[in-house]
């Protein structure tokens, strides 16, 4: 049968293509992992593909003696935890209030929020504001400006809209005020969507580097992991350093590639650990976010 043969061929080539794309996606990470476990003097000779040639954990031992990295690690963890808790709470609170149709001002607030998705002041006005508020050179600059993400509010709101009204009504009849309803009824029901946005927010905080670069480049005590990695990566960069005001502070002059890759892995591993949870929730999150705002 013509059709059957076509479909068989279709299947075989489909799986072949997918496996190829999958390998291409993962290989760069595997290569980095190999190099990070390879002796740094040996790495320079090149030719490391699938396995480390001279296995060593020295690179990791070296980088964990580097103070900037440890400080960065600590700060990134604090930023991620604090930012996530605050971000989830604020987004869910606002989303709950926005979802109440009896709250007449909610349309106004909605407009205020959604506007900012399309219009923003731009880099310099934001920088000037942060400067005028004396947030430059502080840790709070990581948390306060990004306290609320409108996308997350929209995601949580569309989830709350899908919850049955009866629960809230009965709580109200039992005499619960709105705060109690939010805290005791809505929050527990929203757990799946809160997990989704928590993971989004956490990844965002973990991956952020520009705020450190722009505001805290002169404050080594507030450095973050991504920023430290960037500094170390740039040490062998082809000349951007001339233009990079933050470069002069870099501790090492030129970091061997194996060291750079070891730090890269250290920065990536927390995401990798989080990923199984991420994977469970993100499909739902994206789909909810796509529901028209």
């Amino acid at each position, binding site marked *: 049968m013509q059709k059957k043969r076509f479909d068989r061929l279709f299947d075989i080539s489909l799986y072949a293509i997918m496996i190829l794309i999958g390998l291409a996606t993962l290989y760069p990470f595997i290569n980095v992992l190999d190099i990070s476990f390879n002796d740094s003097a040996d790495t320079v000779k090149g030719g490391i593909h699938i396995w480390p040639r001279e296995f060593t954990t020295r690179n990791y031992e070296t980088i964990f003696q580097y103070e900037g990295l440890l400080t960065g690690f600590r700060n990134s963890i604090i930023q991620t935890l604090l930012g996530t808790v605050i971000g989830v709470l604020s987004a869910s609170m606002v989303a709950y209030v926005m979802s109440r149709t009896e709250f007449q001002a909610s349309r106004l607030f909605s407009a205020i929020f959604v506007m900012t998705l399309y*219009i923003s002041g731009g880099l310099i006005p934001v920088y000037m504001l942060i400067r005028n508020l004396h947030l430059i050179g502080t840790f709070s600059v990581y948390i306060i400006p990004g306290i609320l993400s409108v996308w997350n509010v929209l995601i949580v709101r569309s989830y709350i809209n899908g919850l049955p009204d009866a629960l809230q009504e009965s709580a109200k009849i039992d005499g619960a005020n709105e705060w109690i309803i939010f805290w005791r009824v809505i929050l527990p029901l929203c757990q799946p969507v809160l997990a989704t946005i928590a993971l989004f927010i956490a990844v965002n905080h973990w991956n952020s580097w520009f705020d450190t670069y722009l505001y805290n480049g002169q404050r080594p005590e507030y450095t973050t992991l991504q920023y430290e990695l960037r500094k170390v990566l740039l040490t062998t960069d082809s000349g951007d350093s001339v233009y990079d005001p933050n470069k002069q502070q870099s501790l090492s002059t030129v970091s061997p590639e194996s060291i750079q890759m070891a730090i890269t892995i250290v920065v990536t591993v927390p995401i990798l650990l989080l990923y199984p949870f991420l994977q469970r929730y993100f499909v739902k999150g994206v789909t909810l976010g796509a529901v028209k705002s």
Partner: protein
Amino acid sequence: MQNSASHIKYGRQSGLGANRRKWQEVVKHKYFYLMILPVVLFFLIFAYVPMYGVVLAFKDFNYMLGIMDSPWNNFQNFRDVLSDPNFKHAFNNTLFISFGRLIIEFPIPILLAILLNEMRFGRLKRIFQTVFTFPHFISWVVLSGIITNILNDQGVLNQILVLFGFEKNSILLHNGSFLGLLFTSNIWKEAGWSSIIYLAAIAGINPELYEAASIDGANRYQQMKAITWPVLRNTAAIMLILAVGGIMNGGFDQIFNLYNPAVYERADILDTFVYRSAFVDSTGFGYSTTVGLLKSAINCLLLFGANFVVKRVFKEEGLY
């Protein structure tokens, strides 16, 4: 908030019915206000005050005087920007890179979603989806480290090139290959993630449609074309509007972490130009704000324009 404040002032004294009702409404929903106001306050400060800062574009900014007291300069910033060849470069590059992304990158997630949907083994499909989505969660800082590692002189790519008898190539240092790298690496990072939304649309298709088509003798390709694709069109339209609305963005994180002076000529986009002119070359904050303002204005126009075209010309459902 302004409302509630004014009602405290006037509502009681005048006893106007309308105002009192409004004030009662506020009291009735006091918990709502208590929950939302602190957050809204922060939000207003960080989202709306910078919009006021845009007046910098019309001023000759002086650090000592601050934004308010700096003198107006009669559109001098705009004249400076528009006559600056570096701005023209950055502008053209942004357009070129963004259109490149629309043409090269935009269709890939759709294709990937269709292919993933064709995989009939549920578990295998999920494994592949997991793999494809992973790079989305990795920052451009990390990815740029990984990319530099693969592309450097001793890196895997050059060894493959040598193996097949080609010359070594420093992709990061040549204009043409750098642009290619921008597209490829962004596909690597985002295609899997972006395909989720299309897969969600496909998930809404009744599987009986495929069975019926199969019985009628349609092969897999024909089923794909007649059943899957029409469902994806509306989702694609909305994603297209959003993509067009972001045309002036070009991808700051990616480019800022990958570019170098050797490729500024083709890779410098408006965002990187704004950053460098303000913080590296010190062209002046007024100048940089002007560039940023022009950028946002064009972005807004494009967003509305794209929405209009999608709704009126292609008769698809728009964004609003």
